[in-house]
C-alpha cells in the first residue's frame, strides 16, 4: 500500500529565506503526487501536482517541487518565503487510475520576521 512520510512536523524560516519541505513516498511504480496547503481555519488548497513527465513542477505563489524516483521523494521548495506562507503543508500520493489519496501528516511552516 502506498504511504507518505513528512519527517518534519514543524519548520521555522526567516522571511525572505529559502524553503524546502521534505516528502518521501512509498509506492511500487510511478505515482501521482500532490502538495496541498492549509491556511488557518480553512480547507486544503492545491499548490502543485506531479504527473509522470518533467520531474520539476511549478505551482502557485512561487512554489515548485522536484520528483525523484531514485530517492522516492517529492520535496517542495520556494526561493523566498513570505509571511503569508505561514500554513500547514501536506504531501499526498495516489495511484494512476485509483480513487484513494494518501496524505502525509503535514508540516507546519512558521515564518519569523
Amino acid at each position: 500500500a502506498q504511504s507518505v512520510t513528512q519527517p518534519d512536523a514543524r519548520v521555522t524560516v526567516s522571511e525572505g529565506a529559502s524553503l524546502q519541505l521534505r516528502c518521501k513516498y512509498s509506492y511500487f511504480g510511478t505515482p501521482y503526487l500532490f502538495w496541498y496547503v492549509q491556511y488557518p481555519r480553512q480547507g486544503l488548497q492545491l499548490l502543485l501536482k506531479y504527473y509522470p513527465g518533467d520531474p520539476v513542477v511549478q505551482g502557485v505563489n512561487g512554489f515548485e517541487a522536484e520528483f525523484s524516483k531514485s530517492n522516492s521523494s517529492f520535496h517542495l521548495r520556494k526561493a523566498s518565503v513570505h509571511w503569508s506562507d505561514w500554513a500547514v503543508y501536506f504531501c499526498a500520493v495516489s495511484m494512476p487510475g485509483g480513487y484513494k489519496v494518501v496524505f502525509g501528516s503535514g508540516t507546519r511552516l512558521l515564518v519569523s520576521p
Partner: protein
Amino acid sequence: GGIITQTPKFLIGQEGQKLTLKCQQNFNHDTMYWYRQDSGKGLRLIYYSITENDLQKGDLSEGYDASREKKSSFSLTVTSAQKNEMAVFLCASSIEGGSYEQYFGPGTRLTVL
C-alpha cells in the same frame, strides 16, 4: 468556479449521540470524499463515493455511516459519538478519482462532551 459547503461549521454533541455532517458541491464532480483531521495526524479517509448512490469504505470507516443520494451531496453520520472526541471533518470532491485535484470544504469541527 465552484464551491464546497459543509454544514454545520461547529458541532457539539453528547457521548453516544448520533451526529450527521453534510456536504454540498456545485462543481458537478463525480467523486466525493470524507476525511478526518486530527491534530498532528494528517488526513485519514473515512468514506468515498465514486458516483451517486455509491459508497466505498476508507481506512477509518468503523463508527461512521455515509450517504450519497444525489451527485451534489454527501453526508456523514457519526453513529455513536465518543466522549472527549475532537476532530475536524473535511469533505472534498474531484472530477474523477484520485489522479485529479481534490477541492476541499472548510470543515466541520466536532466536539463531544
